[in-house]
């Protein structure tokens, strides 16, 4: 990363200097220095139209001074060199004549005496020379013809920026000053617009914000590589600086491109998958999905199920030991023996099914993200006001609800792209012998599942739970007092009961927002570091050292649990105060043969919790401030154990 101290007014997505560039494999999390989920930091600044004009002027002044040339010439040179001032200096001093020739800079030719008439080469009428105009080549044309020539060129598009003298075979550049002197205000404005666009579009470090109606540009503050770089414009829209698609970290641009092409190629097969209604898996009545959360409940039979896989929500991780499975792709089982032809058909069926699995989750998360965006706007517009009266709290102190929504929006986006990642990263059918791939897939799916589980929880709380709470407040009769004048004064809002309910909700939502964020930080970090490197690092640790560092408590937890999660089956080894998880290669191989291949992330969890200063109950989500306690102060749920039935 470069020093960007020249740019005082820049906002840098997060602190560049603190980014650990060391190769020592330290995966410690440090929320203090990493406020953003995305790990590879982008240093950039957002520029308005006015600021862009200033930047352009700065570049011009610099080149004019260094090369001692006119502004008109500086524009040409800079445009030729893609507005890169360093490149201008290089090319100019390498071969000034060749460069001047190439871009049509000619030495100013002497003008004849003004008191002489000459025929204009376009209209063939005679004019006083003093009334005519010429580029530095001094081929004169009358003002009217110049105007027509320039207007025609401006109407023809941005190529007007390279306009040459009208005389055939003369390649002299027409200076911007001449163009603007002869054109009318409407055309002049268009010309300035082209000029500004060229400044942005030819410049490697600048990109327009692609949001419709937004006129800002984003400037990268360092050498641009062709790697993904998420940026957020002042208008609120996020996009990838490199490929202009919507922001897609931690997935690379190539995967995104492939995925988008794949989706449009398959679009005919996909329409049905994004239905708005699905029959309830139990009573078969149609259930409409009109919210973002995937946790559905049937209004008729009260059956709770997952919108994505239609399995009962109870079997969906939350109450069965904390291991979330819905994200995992289970390859379809082969059905008996096949001849060559039906084998081919079977392959096609399986590969379509696999694609559908990933596509559905990608698309549903995309949809949930849009829903979250509009819910956030809705909350901002009116919901907070209503709520503010119900709980006697100024809206300024209800901002945590907007924060929760913002977190949902961001996490939906990340989660969505991890499905495109998963589709390409792991093949149709990984052979059992390929333990490395199996391990990586297990590791990825476990962490994706954890992140997804918390996101669904967060989404449900800020969406349904909050709505239910508001409904409850509406119905509640609350406290009544008889005022001295005999009128009945009702103040439900500040009743201690309501305040208690409200503060519990508040604490839960804030905690859940933070925990969800941390899970996504972890997921993004892993994908950006690369699963293979991460796992190689884990398994390279010397066996003896790893065994010595096994924390007895962690093992006993796993043993004690009747319905251990795959994570715990995988012989969790959490070193006590070591900075990172260490897993022996033998343990890694064991896990691979277990095929679940999920790794204990307890160590990482402890670090996250230590940073946050609390741990959150996995069952009732209450915030526990005592970092040393192992059971929830609210519901006595074991801190690391499987989630017990309610």
């Amino acid at each position: 990363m470069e020093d960007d101290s020249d740019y005082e007014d820049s906002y840098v997505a997060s602190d560049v200097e603190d980014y650990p560039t060391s190769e020592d494999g330290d995966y410690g999390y440090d929320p203090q220095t990493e406020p953003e989920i995305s790990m590879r930091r982008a240093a950039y600044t957002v520029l308005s139209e006015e600021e862009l004009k200033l930047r352009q002027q700065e570049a011009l002044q610099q080149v004019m001074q260094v090369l001692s040339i006119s502004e008109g010439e500086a524009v040409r040179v800079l445009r030729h060199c893609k507005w890169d001032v360093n490149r201008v200096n290089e090319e100019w001093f390498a071969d000034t004549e060749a460069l001047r020739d190439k871009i049509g800079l000619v030495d100013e030719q002497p003008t004849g005496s003004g008191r002489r008439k000459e025929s204009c080469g376009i209209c063939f009428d005679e004019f006083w020379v003093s009334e005519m105009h010429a580029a530095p080549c001094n081929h004169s044309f009358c003002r009217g013809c110049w105007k027509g020539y320039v207007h025609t060129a401006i109407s023809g598009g941005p190529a007007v920026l390279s306009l040459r003298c009208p005389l055939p075979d003369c390649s002299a550049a027409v200076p911007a000053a001449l163009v603007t002197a002869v054109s009318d205000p409407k055309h002049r404005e268009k010309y300035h617009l082209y000029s500004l666009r060229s400044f942005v579009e030819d410049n490697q470090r600048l990109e327009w914000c692609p949001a419709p109606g937004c006129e800002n540009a984003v400037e990268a503050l360092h050498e641009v590589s062709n790697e993904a770089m998420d940026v957020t414009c002042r208008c609120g829209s996020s996009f990838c600086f490199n490929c202009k698609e919507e922001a897609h970290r931690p997935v690379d641009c190539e995967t995104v491109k492939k995925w988008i092409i794949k989706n449009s190629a398959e679009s005919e097969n996909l329409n049905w998958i994004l239905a708005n209604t699905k029959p309830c898996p139990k009573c078969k009545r149609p259930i409409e999905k009109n919210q973002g959360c995937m946790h559905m409940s049937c209004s008729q039979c009260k059956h709770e199920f997952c919108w994505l896989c239609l399995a009962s929500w109870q079997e969906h991780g939350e109450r069965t030991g904390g291991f979330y499975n819905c994200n995992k792709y289970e390859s379809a089982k082969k059905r008996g023996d096949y001849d060559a032809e039906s084998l081919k058909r079977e392959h096609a069926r399986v590969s379509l099914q696999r694609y559908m699995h990933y596509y559905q989750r990608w698309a549903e998360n995309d949809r949930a993200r849009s829903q979250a965006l509009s819910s956030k706007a809705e909350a901002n517009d009116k919901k907070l006001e209503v709520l503010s009266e119900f709980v006697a709290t100024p809206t300024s102190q209800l901002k945590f609800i907007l924060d929760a929504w913002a977190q949902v929006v961001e996490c939906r986006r990340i989660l969505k792209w991890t499905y495109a990642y998963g589709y390409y990263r792991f093949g149709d059918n990984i052979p059992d012998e390929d333990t490395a791939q199996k391990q990586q897939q297990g590791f990825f799916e476990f962490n994706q599942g954890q992140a997804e589980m918390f996101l669904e929880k967060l989404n449900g709380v800020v969406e349904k739970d909050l709505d239910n709470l508001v409904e409850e407040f509406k119905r509640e009769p609350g406290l009544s007092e008889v005022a001295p004048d005999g009128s009945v004064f009702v103040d439900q809002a500040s009743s201690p009961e309501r305040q208690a309910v409200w503060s519990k909700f508040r604490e839960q939502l804030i905690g859940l927002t933070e925990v969800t964020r941390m899970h996504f930080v972890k997921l993004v970090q892993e994908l950006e570091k690369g699963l293979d490197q991460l796992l190689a690092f884990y398994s390279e640790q010397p066996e003896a050292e790893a065994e010595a560092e096994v924390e007895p408590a962690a093992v006993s937890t796993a043993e004690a649990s009747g319905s251990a999660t795959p994570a715990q089956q995988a012989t969790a080894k959490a070193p006590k105060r070591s900075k990172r998880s260490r897993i022996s290669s033998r343990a890694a191989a064991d896990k691979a043969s277990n095929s679940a291949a999920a790794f204990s992330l307890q160590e990482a969890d402890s670090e996250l919790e230590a940073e946050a200063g609390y741990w959150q109950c996995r069952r009732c989500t209450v915030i526990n401030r005592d970092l040393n306690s192992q059971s929830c102060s609210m519901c006595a749920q074991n801190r690391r154990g499987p989630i017990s039935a309610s």
Partner: protein
Amino acid sequence: MAQFPGRSPTSVAMRRIQAELNEWLLHPPEGCRLESFEPLLNWVILVQGPENSPAPGLPRLYDGELFRLAINFGDHYPLEPPEVLFVPPSPVHPHIYSNGHICLDILYDGRNGGWSPALTVNKIALSLRSMLASNTNKARPAGDMDYCQRTRGRSPKQTNWEFDDDKV
């Protein structure tokens, strides 16, 4: 800012065309004769096939042939080029289609075009004659039939030209 009396595009065009006509009648380009200029916006020029060969020893490809060139001026002439095409039968040339459309950059404006308002019909006629004079391969462009099918009833100015080698 000074206004220019009588400068609507049409009057500029008419005065310029009149001026070119006067010049042509005084000094017609070699091998060319103005057959008709009625109305003033539509000229027909008779072009003689060049009698010399491109180089000593090479055959004279168009000697004795006579072609008709149609020039149709628009309101925005000379800021926009006139429509220029041969009246079939057109010369057999790798850059001239049988429907008379000519692939020559100076005849077109826009993205690849080389038109300049300082060009004249006189210079266009001379360029076309030298294009014939320098040719060594008396053949139609590739895809001639197909092109003529596709552009039936259309002006050559509507074609998206790519000018690869403009000197044949």
